[in-house]
């Protein structure tokens, strides 16, 4: 067992050291669209949720993304929930550095609230 105690680590050239690549998700959330204010079950990087109306939500981000070009991945539905056997999709409405607005839609293209919604972002933090 050995220990080094330091305050600063630099590269051999005296510059910044690269510790990781940009591969970790910066935000993820599992939320209940039927609950008050679309409450999250579990989340990372989410400061709050807004319920804007039926099937209309904002995911508000704790630490802003550097731009609105981040990748967004979502869940596709929940077996046997609601109408159409639980077949619904989450569509992206408004992308911003501090929030993401999404709609949940039935296969008949109507907005609807569902209990299980999953979203993750991959991209750069500000």
């Amino acid at each position, binding site marked *: 067992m050995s220990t*080094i105690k330091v*305050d600063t680590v630099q590269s051999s050239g005296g510059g910044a050291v690269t510790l990781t690549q940009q591969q970790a998700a910066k935000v993820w959330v599992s939320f209940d669209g039927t609950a008050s204010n679309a409450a999250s079950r579990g989340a990372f990087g989410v400061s709050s949720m807004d319920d804007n109306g039926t099937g209309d939500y904002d995911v508000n981000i704790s630490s802003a993304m550097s731009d609105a070009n981040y990748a967004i991945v979502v869940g*596709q539905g929940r077996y*046997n929930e609601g109408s159409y056997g639980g077949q619904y999709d989450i569509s992206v409405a408004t992308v911003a550095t501090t929030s993401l607005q999404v709609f949940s839609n039935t296969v008949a293209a109507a907005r609807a609230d569902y209990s299980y919604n999953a979203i993750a972002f991959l991209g750069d933090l500000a």
Partner: protein
Amino acid sequence: MSTVILDTITGKSTATTITIGSTPVVSASANSMTIRGEGTAQTSIQQGLAKSWVNFNGTGTIAARDSLNVGSLTDNGAGDYSPNFSTNMGNANYSITMMSASDSIRQFVLADSDTTSSYRIRVQNGSFSNADTSYLYCTIHGDLS
């Protein structure tokens, strides 16, 4: 090129904080390590990492092409599968993002029965029938046990 071999790095002033350049980039407390992101914000390494993912063939004898933290795959019937974790999740509140590859006009991957040790997914077509499909992609973000 230089190499340091050791077991522990501890901040001198603050045991859980290490600074690169002039900005603290690593801090750890309560078993959570943070690191500076692309800008000035900090982000949690553990929370940002996918805890499980799998790319598998859901036709015939189902099999993973590649995966992380998937001990086995259970074939529950047509278009009905359960990925089983090697290491359990800490709770069932994790996020499941899924996708399938298909020539169908409408094909959904529906989650179900999330537990700390497994989750269940069903692939449905436009007729609301379960159907096997060749390419399924699932990713889990959440807390490990």
